[in-house]
């Protein structure tokens, strides 16, 4: 026998309790990982190098307010801008779905092409998309999800606009930060809506990240004191602003996570206290045999740490396996795309479990350190 065997035998002496403790830590760790992953999914927009080169200009009053199409001429004259395209959210319903898990945007295909910095055409041709006003460009994720192909028709019922779309898929794109969207001709939208002379937002590509701030300032200044003042910002800032409309998701999920961790701490402390209280006599005997406080503390810590560690291993491994093998995008109708359990999140759960093991061992260790051998033996005899 060695010390490790001794600790292991003690930790597993009450099989049912050890099992329940390990499972409670595992489930809590899995829950914590799921919450942190959800928080990351909802609050961290997809990042790419190209995102820093793209700017979105919207109405300063609100995102819901359109901008005059005539602003394009002014934007074209601002130095540092490579390309500008109208970018209007259509918000249509696909087929009979209650919630459509991908967005449709009206763009100017010729002007939009340079904005697809990181994307490429997977099937069909972009030229076909440019030429045919009734066509669209579809994201690869949506294509796979619905089993669509180039040449198929996609019909959308308008919810923001009182018009419906009947689009032919001209090409499939992939490699963008979001490969679910549908892009179609703004001219078609104008035509269907009686050409109101407005766009939802402007989507721009700048020459380099260095000129980005300068371009933003110039855009904002260009439309100052006009009937439609604009607010230009980088794509990332725009996405963060969009996320903020969801409310304080971070606080909400953070609060739930804290409750989970707190409950976990209470369960573990209670379990360890029970386990040690039952063994006060044995620990007194160990002291009599010559084991010191620090050695007994090490035993208790190792036991507590071991149970928490096993639980963490199960919880972290289990949740990683679960979330990496489930098609969450399909299950949530496109609401959650990546739901990636990152090493950072797994490490966070691991650290929480490790701290838990330490915290749960402190109380019983103090009680054992304070206990005199004689008092410990008296509790039994």
């Amino acid at each position, binding site marked *: *026998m*060695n*010390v490790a*065997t*001794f600790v292991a*035998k*003690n930790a597993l*002496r009450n099989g049912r309790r050890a099992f329940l403790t390990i499972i409670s830590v595992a489930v809590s760790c899995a829950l914590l990982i799921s919450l942190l992953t959800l928080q990351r999914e909802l609050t961290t927009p997809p990042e790419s190098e190209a995102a820093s080169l793209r700017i979105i200009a919207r109405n300063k009053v609100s995102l819901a307010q359109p901008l005059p199409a005539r602003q394009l001429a002014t934007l074209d004259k601002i130095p540092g801008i490579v390309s500008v395209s109208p970018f209007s959210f259509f918000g249509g319903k696909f087929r009979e779905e209650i919630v459509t898990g991908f967005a449709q945007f009206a763009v100017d295909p010729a002007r939009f092409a340079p904005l697809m910095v990181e994307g490429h055409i997977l099937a069909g041709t972009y030229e076909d998309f440019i030429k045919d006003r009734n066509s669209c460009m579809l994201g690869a994720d949506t294509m796979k999800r619905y089993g669509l192909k180039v040449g198929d028709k996609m019909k959308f019922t308008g919810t923001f606009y009182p018009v419906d779309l009947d689009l032919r898929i001209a090409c499939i794109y992939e490699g963008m930060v979001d490969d679910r969207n549908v892009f179609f001709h703004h001219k078609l939208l104008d035509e269907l809506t009686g050409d109101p002379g407005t766009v939802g937002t402007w989507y721009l590509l700048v020459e380099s990240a260095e000129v980005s701030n300068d371009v933003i300032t110039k855009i904002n200044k260009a439309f100052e004191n006009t009937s439609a003042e604009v607010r230009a910002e980088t794509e990332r800032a725009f996405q963060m602003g969009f996320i903020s409309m969801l409310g304080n998701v971070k606080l909400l999920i953070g609060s739930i996570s804290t409750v989970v961790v707190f409950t976990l701490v209470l369960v573990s402390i209670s379990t360890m206290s029970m386990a040690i209280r039952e063994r006060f*006599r*044995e620990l007194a*005997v*160990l*002291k*009599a*045999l*010559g*084991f*010191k*406080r620090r*050695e007994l503390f090490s035993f208790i810590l190792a036991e507590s740490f071991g149970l928490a560690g096993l639980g963490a291993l199960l919880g972290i491994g289990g949740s990683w396996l679960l979330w990496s093998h489930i098609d969450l995008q399909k299950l949530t109708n496109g609401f959650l795309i990546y739901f990636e359990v990152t090493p950072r999140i797994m490490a966070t759960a691991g650290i929480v479990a490790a701290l838990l093991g330490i915290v749960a061992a402190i109380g019983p260790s103090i009680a054992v350190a304070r206990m*005199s*051998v*004689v008092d410990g*033996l008296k509790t*039994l*005899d």
Partner: protein
Amino acid sequence: MSQEPIVEIRELSKIYRQGDINVTALDNVSLDIARGEFVVLMGPSGSGKSTLLHIIAGIDRATSGKVLVQGINVANLNESELADWRNQNVGFVFQSFNLIPVLTAFENIELPLLLTALNRKQRREQVQTAMDLVGLGDRGHHRPDQMSGGQQQRVAIARALVTDPALIVADEPTGNLDSKSAADALGILQALSRDAGKTVIMVTHDPKAASFGTRSLHLEKGEIVV
């Protein structure tokens, strides 16, 4: 038997505080115990015999007086030094055996050796020797709940002597045993004292058990009366 004192106790007192009252457990006790002696401490409940045993064994501290065991003043040792000292010099035998239920007999006996510098092989040899001494040769892999009371007490005695201590203290070691097992256990303690030169100090209420000792001391109200 050598007459060299292994335990020298001088004017030893122990006063407990119970609420607002001071209770004198030991009152100015002086005593010498020679190496190889089998001393039996007897007396009514509350007479101070267990307290005296605990102080000699270094698991309790005196209020005043001096306890020298093999020339070392136990009172001067700090917690950590005292733990080491107990491991090397004292073997404990308890009334209720106090074996670790999840460990086998072999592992229970090996437990005090985990604190020594002995390697696995040396530990195994020493445990086997202790088991042979108490007649437990083939029961090493049994857990306490698979053994009788008498066998468990043999394991406890083997655990007490596995580190080869000079002093073995036994607090009512036969209290939970039938008469046959009690006689066996006492016979082992007697043999350890007589043949191996161990000093055994035993607390008991049982006059039959006391007859195995070389000297009996009676305590009453914290004083040695005989």
